[in-house]
């Protein structure tokens, strides 16, 4: 875990690939890709189903650990069209009625609106809390009046490290540029996309169950 203040907000970056926002008692997560294993399995590709279980367990763990009241998912919560793993999620969600749930719709979130409603998940294209804007894809446009920074996902950021003697490594990371934060993908069954940070950007890599500030 690593405390990080951003535009007057107190964030805790968790090695479970989420941000806990203290003032709002909110977990911010991105790219869960729930149901991905089920989607593969339905198509005859034998991915371990354990993946889904692990992702739900980790999510439950961070909600509990931080005592969060709310979760804000900045897109790609579900991987694809409906499958039975979503019923699994629904049952799991049912056991956490006290958690307020907001989903910023990502390109993978293609389920029927009714379904989200039934799970008490509020759907939004973008969302604003205080001085922060939440979107799925990092926006190309200017920030709306009143907001100072944007938090998004979509990219699955990863950082490539290289050192002396041709040492190399690739790790998922949190990425903060001047007015923008990109979260790592939460789902276990996701890859990373390498980003090329600028000098003034802040990077926090996730390795070995710890957060390691890179720059």
């Amino acid at each position: 875990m690593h405390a990080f203040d951003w535009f007057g907000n107190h964030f805790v970056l968790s090695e479970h690939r989420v941000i806990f926002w203290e003032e709002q008692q909110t977990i911010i997560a991105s790219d869960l890709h729930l149901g991905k294993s089920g989607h593969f399995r339905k198509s005859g590709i034998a991915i371990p189903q354990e993946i889904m279980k692990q992702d739900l367990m980790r999510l439950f763990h961070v909600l509990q650990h931080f005592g969060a009241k709310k979760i804000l998912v900045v897109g790609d919560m579900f991987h694809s069209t409906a499958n039975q793993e979503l019923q699994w999620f629904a049952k799991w969600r049912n056991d956490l009625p006290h958690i307020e749930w907001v989903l910023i719709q990502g390109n993978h979130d293609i389920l029927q609106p009714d379904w989200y409603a039934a799970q008490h998940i509020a759907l939004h294209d973008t969302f604003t809390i205080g001085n922060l804007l939440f979107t799925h894809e990092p926006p190309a446009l200017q920030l709306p009046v009143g907001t100072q920074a944007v938090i998004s996902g979509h990219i699955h950021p990863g950082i490539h490290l290289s050192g002396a003697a041709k040492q190399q490594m690739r790790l998922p990371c949190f990425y903060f540029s001047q007015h923008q934060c990109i979260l790592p993908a939460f789902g276990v069954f996701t890859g990373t996309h390498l980003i090329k940070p600028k000098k003034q950007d802040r990077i926090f890599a996730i390795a070995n169950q710890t957060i390691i500030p890179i720059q």
Partner: protein
Amino acid sequence: MPKKNPAKQPSSPATGGKAVVEAWLVQKGMQAFDFQQETWEYMRHGQSGIVNAPTGCGKTFSVFLGNFIQYIDAHPGEWPSKKNNGLQLLWITPLRALGKDLARAMQEVVNELGLPWQVGIRNGDTPQAERARQKLRMPEVLIITPESLHLLLATKEHRPLFASLRTIAVDEWHELMGSKRGVQVELAISYLLQLAEENKNRPQPLQLWGISATIGNLDQAKEVLLHPLATQGVIVKSQLQKKNAVHSIIPEEIETYPWAGHMGIKLIEQVIPIIERSNTTLIFINTRGMAERWYQALLDVAPQLSGAIALHHGSIEQELRLWVEEALHQQKLKAVVATASLDLGVDFRPVDTVIQVGSPKGVSRFLQRAGRAGHQPGEISHVYFLPTHSLELLEAAALKTAIEQQEMESKEPLLLCFDVLCQFLCTLAVGDGFTQQMIRPVVERCWCFQHMTSQDWQQVMLHITKGGKALDQYDEYKKVEEVNGLYRITNRRLALRHRLHIGTIVSDAMLKVKLVSGGYIGHIEEYFISRLQPGDVFTLAGRNVELVQIKDMTVLVRKSNQKKSQVPSWNGGRMSLSANLGKVLRHEMHKVATQEQHAQPSPEIAALTPLFQLQASISHIPNNNELLIEHHQSKEGYHLLVYPFEGRQVHEAMSAILAYRISRLVPISFSIAMNDYGFELLSDQPIPVDDTNAYELFSTEDLFVAMQHSTNLVEMSTRKFRDIAVIGGLVFQGMPGEQKKARHLQSSASLLFRVFKEFDADNILLRQAFQEVYEQQMEERRLRQAFQRIESNSIVIKWPEKLTPLSFPIIADGLNRNNLSSEKLEDRIKKMAAALNGRS
């Protein structure tokens, strides 16, 4: 082809089919070779076996004329008129390119014999209508690739197609064995044998004939092929000797010839006269990217050859390839630049010269390529070896010695390829389905699966029916379904997808390349094209084209006159030097070290003298009883170079073990590179290897433990898993017109490896990845031998200040590095982060 040749007279007067064939030969003014007659005799007696003869000596004729003889014998009187006889001879060949020529030759013979037979081809190039016709009326002879044979088994009601099958011939068995395609062939054969045994109306049992060039383990090749038959079988050997004259193309100034990383184009001036004085020349190049460059360079240097030279490799559109092959036959070309795509048995009569650019990595492969020249029994093949860097000349000298001593390498047959098995079972499930009772013995009769346990089998079945370990609830895994003991894939989409994925040759997703103005020019790997921007110019099939856009799995391009272009680097696997060649190479080095044979060194060694003198003066030249280790410090860090001369594969395992053992002494991180001569450990801190511990580090004690603990194992297994995941149906490469849906089903093999390792470590395909590393790369026996040899050597440690001629090619080869570390991950990351910040 039997030849106008003074072979000895047949011993007994021929009757029946043999008389018919011999009468035809006489009419053609030809006579059969002894080994051909021998094969016919064995076939008449219902035997199975292997025919072994050098390329171009009529191996194919031995088996297919044998089959005609049998048929004529079985149908005396009626054979000239009896039509529509059903499939008699199934001819499995690894190369599509072979099909057309072979069919043409066979049909010609059939017609001349007056046999009303049809010869058909079935492979990836066969049009749909033709396939459908074949299913209605099978030709008597069907020439087929392993993949197309499996596809045929994936069709419904395929059993009657094989009802009259008499002989299965497997061409180029030496190429197939030892690969997963070979396992595919084993499974198909065992299955067809089972069908034949179940068919009580059959007059005779099936016969099985392999056709093979010489390899080190020919007996085993026979054993593997005939394993499902459970018979001894015979090996028919031709006494014909193929004569090869090997010449090296030697750089005039060895001092200025590159030490590494080049393509040999500097020597192109020496190639032109060879092409000009030869009838037709084949130029073999190891990779497709290099072939493109060579083709361009030839055109630049010798514009007079334009129109008379062509390019041939696996990524070129089939029509173009066929045109090149046709033109080769008709002697319209002076030279063809080719990759392994022209390696095998095609008989191009006009070819009289072969140039091999870069190391062929093995004696057999070199001879195979040499065999493309002077493709007539008795003629001498002229083969030129063109080194891409100076030290390759040493390899040329070793090759010559190995050929002289007939040191052929062996092909190791594969064991327990569960990925191929999963695919095969799904293939049958797409067709008529299978029962466990019927199919399990079929599988167990294959050499590959002879040691399969009940547990393995259950896991395979679990994998394809239930998707491995599942939680039942919320699970919708769907692939193979069981109804009353019959296992089938009923979902049409799954079935279609499986059919598109049949095969064991794994390449990156390939995109078709099409001109905006119309016309396909070839295929290109997605990996390469994804790094280009519209407007970028690249080279394919010898043309420079500009990327316009990528649409529906098709790359649209337009012609470009721009001179500068990018050459695709196809991710082809790197071949490792065979153990035999490694041994001979060590001896060549020994000769240099001890100045043995100094009276008359080979031209290659003589040419390399300045390089050896440099090596000797700044470091050392190891003799047969020495292992050379060099320490070197550079801007990059601390290099430790070790030269066992055992080939890339052994070096990969050996370097991992050495790195592991050193990392137990101090916390240290390594980046590891290797080539066929030796390997490099690179670190950011001094590497503690000296006279006091060197012998210990190479000890054979606890070798297996070191192997298991070396974290490289995971890295190596990840690479193996890439192919396994594709063959076993875990990586879905998308199909035409379904991109959007497919995208949700895509994942990289390395990601899959990671999740399997974490969540289903017992998975049968994951286990196979580790097993393949143990068997193929870390094969304990071979590794132990290498370590034992080193244990008995004296270790010579040098500290050269400059890079040595031996070390340069290894250090320069920055690709495919392995890593190993005993430092804490956090510490490593912090160091790297510090480096990152220091730079920016």
